[in-house]
């Protein structure tokens, strides 16, 4: 039973792994391009294990941004996980403490989405299934980072093979991915303009926090959409 669940998880995670693999390699190549060693790149993939925030981290590190701001930015990009872990709490209540530790460590976007779907279908969210799904994404992510980093080392001029354009476009894709959210367009517009202005008048590392704070403050001040009128009670979701 446990073994079956594990392999069911592996099969479920396989397509996710295939679509994430190019990004793992891209991270490895760009990390080396930004001054990371091959070890650093794999070390970051293995410990942080959150693709988008890893890209953000190496971009900021390449710009000599202050360490606290790098860590804060990674925290901010990963903030959505707080909602995930609140939401899957009800499905993994039966995990042991150690199992919960690993479950939260592996909690990437597709892991969350699949766990919710599985619970909704009424299938049991067992630790074996969760681990199978998680590992088939986690382990290849390390391998692809390694391959990308080794490949990145062989590249002389990253501009000649167009590597420099990939990060901004990757981030643009992430921004677009959030476009269903409330006040998305005003937040993006204000953060973009504020970051450009801050880049011009204040200087490089600060444009990130100034731009971000402008958009976040705007979102907090704009009229709340209907579903926010009632104070959201996390409790009734459990």
């Amino acid at each position, binding site marked *: 039973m446990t073994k079956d669940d594990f392999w069911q998880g592996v099969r479920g995670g396989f397509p996710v792994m295939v679509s994430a693999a190019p990004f793992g390699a891209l991270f490895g190549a760009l990390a080396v391009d930004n001054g990371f060693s091959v070890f650093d790149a794999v070390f970051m993939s293995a410990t942080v294990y959150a693709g988008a925030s890893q890209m953000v981290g190496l971009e900021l590190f390449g710009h000599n941004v202050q360490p606290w701001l790098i860590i804060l930015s990674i925290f901010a990009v990963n903030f*959505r996980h707080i909602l995930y872990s609140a939401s899957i709490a009800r499905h993994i209540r039966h995990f042991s403490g150690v199992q919960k530790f690993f479950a*939260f460590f592996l909690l990437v976007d597709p892991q969350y989405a699949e766990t919710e779907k599985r619970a909704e279908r009424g299938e049991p969210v067992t630790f074996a299934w969760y681990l199978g799904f998680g590992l088939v994404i986690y382990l290849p992510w390390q391998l692809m980072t390694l391959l990308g980093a080794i490949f990145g080392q062989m590249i002389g001029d990253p501009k000649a093979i167009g590597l420099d354009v990939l990060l901004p476009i990757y981030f*643009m*894709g992430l921004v*677009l991915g959030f476009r269903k959210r409330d006040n998305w367009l005003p937040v993006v517009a204000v953060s973009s303009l*504020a970051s450009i202005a801050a880049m011009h008048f204040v200087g490089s590392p600060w444009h990130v926090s100034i731009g971000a704070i402008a958009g976040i403050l705007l979102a907090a001040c704009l009229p709340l959409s209907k579903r926010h009128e009632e*104070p959201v009670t996390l409790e009734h979701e459990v």
Partner: protein
Amino acid sequence: MDNAEHMQLIYVILAAAVATFLTRIGGYVMITQMKRIPPRMEAALNAVPAAVLSTLVAPAFFSGGWEVALAMLVALAVGLRFSSLWMLLAGWLVVMAIRHVLI
């Protein structure tokens, strides 16, 4: 990167790993502690990713050169319909075509 810089990178990565883990366990801890999230705070939290990521996109549009700006526009158009892998491919093709064919 010299040695001190490299050690700093390792520390930053470790701190980032801890920060990331905190976000992954945070909701679980919160839900057992806190009864409700104020709606304005929730609205602000919802805006965090788009706000942070926009600051990494917009300046690059102006600082990367005209071919990068053009590639970003093409990628934006592609991204409205297709996944981010296609955006990357389209933008990359534009930049490579301009750099190696036109110039």
